[in-house]
């Protein structure tokens, strides 16, 4: 599993070969460095697993992003059609984060190709 950032803010990328899923988990308020690495790392992971059928972005614990994060997520959304994955799912809990991601997906031509799922975040999971 590839992990970028620290316990406060970052993301990890894993691959489940049985389910054919690339699983990305993001958390916290990203620095510019973490944000910039996001699209590059996720795109590389997808290209290295050509048999993957789905991409799951677990953004339940991600806070709304500054400009670098928005650019990075937008870049990933624009690249979705060429990745070869048959489905992309984004899981969110924070309404503000979801609103930002929905807008970015829509503006980058992926509004209709992403499935949005409402989850529970760490606060609720640990309650």
């Amino acid at each position, binding site marked *: 599993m590839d992990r970028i950032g620290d316990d406060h803010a970052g993301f990890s990328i894993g691959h489940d070969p049985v389910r054919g899923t690339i699983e990305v988990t993001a958390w916290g308020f990203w620095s510019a460095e973490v944000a910039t690495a996001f699209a590059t790392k996720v795109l590389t992971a997808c290209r290295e697993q050509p048999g993957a059928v789905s991409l799951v972005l677990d953004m339940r614990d991600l806070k*709304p992003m*500054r400009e670098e994060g928005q650019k990075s997520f937008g870049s990933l959304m624009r690249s979705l059609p060429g990745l070869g994955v048959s489905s992309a799912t984004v899981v969110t809990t924070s*309404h503000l984060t979801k609103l*930002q991601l929905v807008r970015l997906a829509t503006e980058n031509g992926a509004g209709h190709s992403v499935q949005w799922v409402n989850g529970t975040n760490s606060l609720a999971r640990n309650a």
Partner: protein
Amino acid sequence: MTTDEEVCAAALRFYEGIEHMVSGKGLGLIQETWHHTNRVTSGHPSGEWAQGWDEIFATWEVFAGFGRHDRGGSKVKSIQAHVYGDVAYTTCLFSASPAFGGETLACTNVLQRVNGAWKVIHHHADKSAMMGAALEKIAQGG
């Protein structure tokens, strides 16, 4: 102008910034009215607590992404200030613009006098499912 009136004026200037934001005029006024430190906090009608100016500004940017000239019309009433030295708080009722759900929310703002000017250091508004639904509809192109 009394100190209470100064605090109310500073808080109302912040709400003028919100009206600018939803009208597509940007975040300049909101930036001007807040204290930019790591020790400021905000809780919006949608979302969780934001800690520190950088994180808070990112949340305002989410709302600003929905700003447009025909989406204004927010209103503030019943504002009251309570001053304790260089710190004060206000309570008010904020009615979101129709495009943002139109709901009336009870709000609290804490301000600090910084170099003679009152700056917002904490903002909290009631949760608003109607605002969240309105924004999600806009985000999805509705």
